[in-house]
């Protein structure tokens, strides 16, 4: 008992059963109001006596009799114990504030009610500001998009068990996309502290087990100091490449109970983090291979966390005058740079003799073709004898169960390191090897690539003309009309482009890292809408015009994100690519129907969003978002987008629902 008194930091509901502790405990808590003290003190004589009896050497031990029977059966005081000083959750807020979060997104849940209350009152709802979400999947996906746009994590809180289960798919997306998401989850570990019923449903022995396969690190702190240490440790782990989600449990009683006045707490400081660079001999070997190659190719995927990576990749490519094929996990290289050969990536890869893969997630899929048929076949796209170098932080941290690490691709040199951090030393190593003769040779190579790049852009524009006046509206026209209106703005495309046939990558001029954020990682549907809102939240204070090409099937899954955008005045232009289907799946069912020789005229069953069509403009209006549509005529599209941009520039979200071709 003595030990218990000394170490347990909270006991208010236990005073009835631990009477001997009650007085010293209450004495320590001068912060408790008098009425509470009186109420609890009324129980003291009986329980003290019991305790004394139990501890008295004169009293003979009674077989089968428990020493604290009275104390254990006494009814606790039916009085609320009020906290006048700071609660544990206040300290948790201090920890959270120390990490510099601007926002914390959550759907409210009773397992973190203490933390919620402290955030908005003790923390004054500033740094972080509470962002109200309509679903935990929205919170987590918002944090995913925010992290990529802001270059730092956004914190989310989820309710115990059910809330974390809701968030799990979005966390998996972030895991696959190497995005740091900082998760706090409520839980009540001590069964005696749970109300009957719902708090049992919302508690777990091991809360983090729900998502442990796809978070980098988790902990369930048992004390406030433990929480502080783990909170800072989790942040450090999350933002150290490979950047990934982390999770810290906030225990319910730990949040809600007062901090004992004699408890000394401190918050560790987060130091400067240096990401892991490639081993120097391997970097020099890579430089030698690149400089001596006839057709070297740089292959970035989830490379750029910041503009520094884009700038360094430009330097490296221009030194070598070599092709860059941007796989597209981030905006790694300007789309109209003369060396950008992404539009003809397959042929460029096929001609390469050295390929440097920079944070490429699916290297096998990038270097091989693969046929989706009964007898699966694959064929290398690379030339025989081509040297492959892999530089990725993914090799530093990998887990077994979920298969997002993709098919194994043998390489000649695998550098387990952060590519962005390694680029400066690789540039220096290349510079050391360059001579004048090589520079001249490289210039000729660069000129050829520049001509090919110009041809590819002209071809893309020419291709976009086909179906220009078609109804439903072509995805090419959708993207071109949007581009026309934002080209002179400081824009950021916060959505993926695969659903619109990658047209923005071919038609738009991307120059900055923040102008394109890649895809949803795990490809779990429901990413785009909330991740776009999260990215737009990051862009808000920076004055960037955030636009999303929003697939309809994705939007209907997490449409509550629109309400969050309206509620928090998050300026975002959502242009709905409404092909009125889960179109990818429609094509998959068609493929199987054909394979089974049954005809494909019934494949709309279960894949389309018809009868009724979803009126996204009306739904958005119902959530407080300025919206119009459905736009069905190509000529109406441009003016509708122009009207919506005015709304977004005024600081509000807007939506245009456009009925489009499938792809």
């Amino acid at each position, binding site marked *: 008992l003595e030990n218990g008194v000394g170490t347990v930091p909270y006991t208010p509901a236990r005073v009835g059963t631990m009477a001997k502790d009650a007085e010293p405990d209450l004495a320590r808590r001068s912060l408790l109001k008098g009425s509470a003290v009186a109420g609890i003190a009324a129980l003291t004589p009986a329980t003290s006596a019991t305790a004394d009896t139990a501890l008295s050497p004169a009293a003979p031990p009674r077989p089968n009799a428990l020493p604290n029977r009275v104390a254990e059966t006494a009814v606790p005081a039916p009085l609320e114990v009020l906290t006048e000083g700071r609660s544990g959750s206040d300290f948790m807020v201090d920890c959270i504030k120390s990490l510099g979060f601007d926002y914390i997104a959550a759907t409210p849940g009773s397992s973190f009610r203490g933390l919620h209350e402290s955030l908005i009152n003790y923390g004054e709802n500033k740094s972080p500001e509470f962002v109200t979400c309509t679903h935990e999947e929205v919170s987590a996906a918002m944090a995913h998009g925010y992290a990529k746009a802001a270059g730092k994590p956004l914190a989310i809180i989820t309710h115990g068990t059910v809330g974390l289960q809701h968030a799990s798919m979005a966390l998996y997306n972030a895991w696959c996309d190497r995005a740091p998401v900082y998760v706090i989850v409520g839980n009540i570990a001590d069964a005696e502290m749970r109300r009957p019923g719902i708090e049992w449903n919302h508690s777990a022995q091991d809360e983090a087990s729900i998502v442990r396969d796809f978070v980098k690190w988790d902990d369930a702190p048992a004390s406030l100091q433990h929480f502080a240490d783990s909170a800072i440790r989790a942040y450090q782990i999350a933002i150290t490449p490979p950047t990934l989600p982390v999770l810290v449990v906030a225990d319910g009683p730990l949040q809600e109970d007062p901090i004992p006045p004699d408890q000394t707490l401190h918050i560790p400081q987060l130091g400067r983090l240096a990401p892991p660079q490639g081993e120097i001999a391997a970097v020099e070997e890579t430089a030698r291979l690149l400089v001596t190659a006839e057709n070297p190719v740089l292959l970035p995927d989830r490379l750029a966390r910041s503009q520094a990576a884009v700038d360094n990749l430009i330097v490296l490519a221009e030194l070598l005058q070599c092709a860059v094929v941007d796989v597209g996990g981030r905006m790694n290289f300007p789309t109209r740079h003369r060396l950008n050969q992404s539009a003809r990536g397959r042929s460029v890869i096929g001609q390469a003799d050295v390929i440097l893969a920079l944070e490429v997630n699916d290297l096998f899929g990038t270097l091989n073709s693969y046929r989706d048929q009964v007898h699966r076949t694959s064929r290398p796209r690379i030339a025989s004898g081509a040297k492959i170098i892999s530089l990725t932080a993914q090799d530093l941290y990998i887990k077994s169960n979920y298969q997002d690490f993709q098919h194994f691709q043998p390489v000649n040199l695998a550098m387990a390191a952060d590519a962005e951090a390694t680029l400066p030393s690789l540039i220096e190593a290349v510079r050391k090897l360059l001579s004048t003769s090589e520079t001249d040779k490289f210039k000729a190579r660069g000129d050829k690539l520049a001509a090919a790049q110009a041809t590819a852009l002209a071809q893309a524009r020419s291709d976009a*003309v*086909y179906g220009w006046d078609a109804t439903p509206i*072509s995805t090419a026209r959708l993207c*071109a009309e949007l581009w026309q209106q934002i080209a002179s703005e400081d824009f950021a495309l916060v959505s993926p482009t*695969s659903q619109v046939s990658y047209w923005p990558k071919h038609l738009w001029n991307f120059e900055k890292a923040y102008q394109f954020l890649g895809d949803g990682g795990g490809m779990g549907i429901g990413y785009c809408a909330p991740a776009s809102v999260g990215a737009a939240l990051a862009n808000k204070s920076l004055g960037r015009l955030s636009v999303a090409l929003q697939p309809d099937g994705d939007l209907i899954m997490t449409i509550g994100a629109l309400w969050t955008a309206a509620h928090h005045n998050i300026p975002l232009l959502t242009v709905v690519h409404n092909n009125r289907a889960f179109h990818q799946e429609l094509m998959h069912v*068609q493929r199987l129907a054909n394979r089974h*020789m049954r005809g*494909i005229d019934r494949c709309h069953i279960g894949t389309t969003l018809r009868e009724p069509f979803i009126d996204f403009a009306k739904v958005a209006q119902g959530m407080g978002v300025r919206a119009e549509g459905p736009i069905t005529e190509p000529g109406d599209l441009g003016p509708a987008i122009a009207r919506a941009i005015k709304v977004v520039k005024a600081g509000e979200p807007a939506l245009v629902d456009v009925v489009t071709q*499938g792809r």
Partner: protein
Amino acid sequence: MRAVFCRSNLLHMGTCILTTCLSMTLANVSTRAQDVTKRSAIDHGHALFLADGCSECHGTVGQGSRASGPRLAPQPLPLEAFLQVLRHPISEMPPYVVEVLSDADAGDIHAYLASIAAPTQKAQDIGALNR
């Protein structure tokens, strides 16, 4: 029409006008019938193109997509080559067997694709494609 005139030249002058008129009338009927047949094939092909899911990957006017399927129109492959690709595709497209899509129906789809006119505008004439 050239054949009609050739035949009419062989007829007696007295019956020439009547015959010519009759011939032209029959020819017009024949042409219209052919037009109707052709139009019918195009319409049927268009309906099949949409109903059989071709448009899901290739677009409703065969414009193609960089993500899901190549452009089919205007100027589709010659019919024989078109059928060959349909039955034995070299790409990701699953084969359309004859039990699922007959040669006649495939021919109508081809007729629809062949009927699609080339774009009247060029990319350089479209402002949105020149930013």
